[in-house]
């Protein structure tokens, strides 16, 4: 019954909870990636961030032709938004901008966590503009089909209708606004 104390207890425990990671960046947890979805009217911004392992199966600079090919394949998929998300056709969305941070690129400062020998992350973001915002009531994330090592997406949604935290899995990959 004492909800206040219960909440305080949980608040004290937050350092154990994944929520604390928001402060320092993100958890590096294999099989899990985070997806930020921000929406204002017809503008839709989607950000993906997760361990590189989820997408290519290794987390170091590619050492052979096979690994190079896998990395190139993964980046190619992410650069094609139709293979990442399935937006409702009625919303008439078009891609305005897409950026996929290439890990292990030679440009200094562009690659995140590339210096870390054991961990590397992959980051990407997409910006859509939708002509019919009213029809944009949610969308399906199709990443799981292309990246079988990805088991879970922690989604943060911020939009005109409110904010929410959602968890997607291959079996239930629908983001709702």
């Amino acid at each position, binding site marked *: *019954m004492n909800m206040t104390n219960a*909440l*305080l207890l949980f608040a004290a425990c937050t350092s154990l909870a994944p929520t604390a990671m928001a402060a320092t960046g993100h958890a590096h947890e294999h099989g899990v990636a985070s997806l930020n979805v921000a929406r204002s009217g017809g503008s839709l911004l989607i950000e993906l961030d997760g361990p590189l392992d989820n997408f290519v199966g290794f987390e170091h600079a590619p050492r052979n032709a096979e690994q190079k090919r896998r990395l190139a394949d993964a980046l190619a998929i992410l650069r094609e938004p139709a293979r990442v998300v399935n937006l409702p056709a009625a919303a008439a969305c078009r891609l305005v901008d897409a950026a996929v941070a290439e890990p292990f690129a030679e440009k200094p400062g562009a690659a995140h966590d590339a210096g870390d020998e054991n961990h590397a992350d992959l980051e990407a973001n997409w910006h859509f503009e939708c002509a019919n915002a009213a029809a944009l009531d949610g969308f399906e994330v199709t990443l799981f089909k292309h990246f079988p090592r990805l088991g879970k997406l922690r989604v943060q949604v911020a939009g005109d209708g409110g904010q929410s935290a959602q968890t997607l899995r291959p079996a239930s990959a629908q983001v709702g606004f």
Partner: protein
Amino acid sequence: MIRLLPLALASLWNRRLTAGLTVIVVALSVSLLLGVERLRNDARESFASTVSRTDLIVGARSGPVQLLLYSVFHIGDATNEVSWPAVQRIAARQEVAWVVPLSLGDSHRGFRVVGTTPDFFRHYRYGDGRRIGFAAGRPFADVFEAVVGAEVAARLGYREGARITLAHGSGEHVAEHGDKPFSVVGVLAPTGTPVDRSVLVSLESIEAIHLDWQGGAPIPGLKIAPEMVRKFDLAPKRVTAALVGLENRAMVFRLQRAINEDTREPLLAILPGVTLDQLWDVVGIGARVLLAVSALVVAVGLAGLVAVMVASLGERRRELAILRALGAGPRDVFFLVAAESVLLTLAGCVLGVALVQVLVFSMAAWLQANYGLAVSPGWPVGREWMLLGAVMLAGLLASLVPALRAYRQSLADGMMVRM
């Protein structure tokens, strides 16, 4: 078989003492189950409706849940503060539409004092985007003016023009700022949020009452009269947290990252709705455990019902034999005893629902006052119906135990009981 129902009712009425006690046991367990579910739901809803249309909450770096709880729900205390220049830097960003700073730490007779700016009344939203309304008066405009929440006004009997003094800190160790009284200039309409339990003053007022203080205590020998404070610089130095609204919500994650990665001051920006969901993922485990325990209590209640029904069969052998002589089959006897058990469960559920209404009705004010939980009486909704259905199903299954026993007993006894 439906013709047996009046007989089942008459039989239960004949055993009304044990039947009544059984119903009460079932009703208490059902009301516990429904009460926990109602509290779980209403708590979540009342928390979720406390803050809306605020895109980010910014505070000193700590845990996101901790920041959410102390800044908006007034639960717990901040361990660190945000410098005023940092707030100003955020406000100056072009994607930011508004910033409402919050300065906590003082109290008035158990209620929190919130130092803020008049923008609070313009931008703070609750529920599905509702604004704060004034029941009487106006926002504070000057030092030593205060606006009180609906519950503060109701409980302490404040109206416009009332004179109040604030205290440093909250809880047991408070030191009165007795030399600098405030006048109440506005009373807010009820919102069902912690705002109802707040005393709102300007950031300058917070500075003013602490001019002659240092480290949480008055500086010995230094006394600055209220009329003198205006001569000092009352610009805020630090605040506890700030609510931030954006011009374009699509930018919220970029701004959050920019604030969190700001190297000038360790800050934390959270999305309140997201953090609340994450908090609920954790609290939800506890709530589910509580619900599971309540379900076990219902199982205990139904076990008691089975025990009472089975025990009654011994003294009802003659009654059941008479029914057999009149042409009732063992199936009729089965149905009769099962119907009695199900009727007891049904009565327990109905009484349990009524009990929850009474409890919620009588405890709503107390829960609101002490825990900030807005619980509402009313018919069961959604999942509560499902729970009631589950209880009835369990009652139906439990009724098979005495019914089967009666069936076998009446097969053996026939029309005549040899006793």
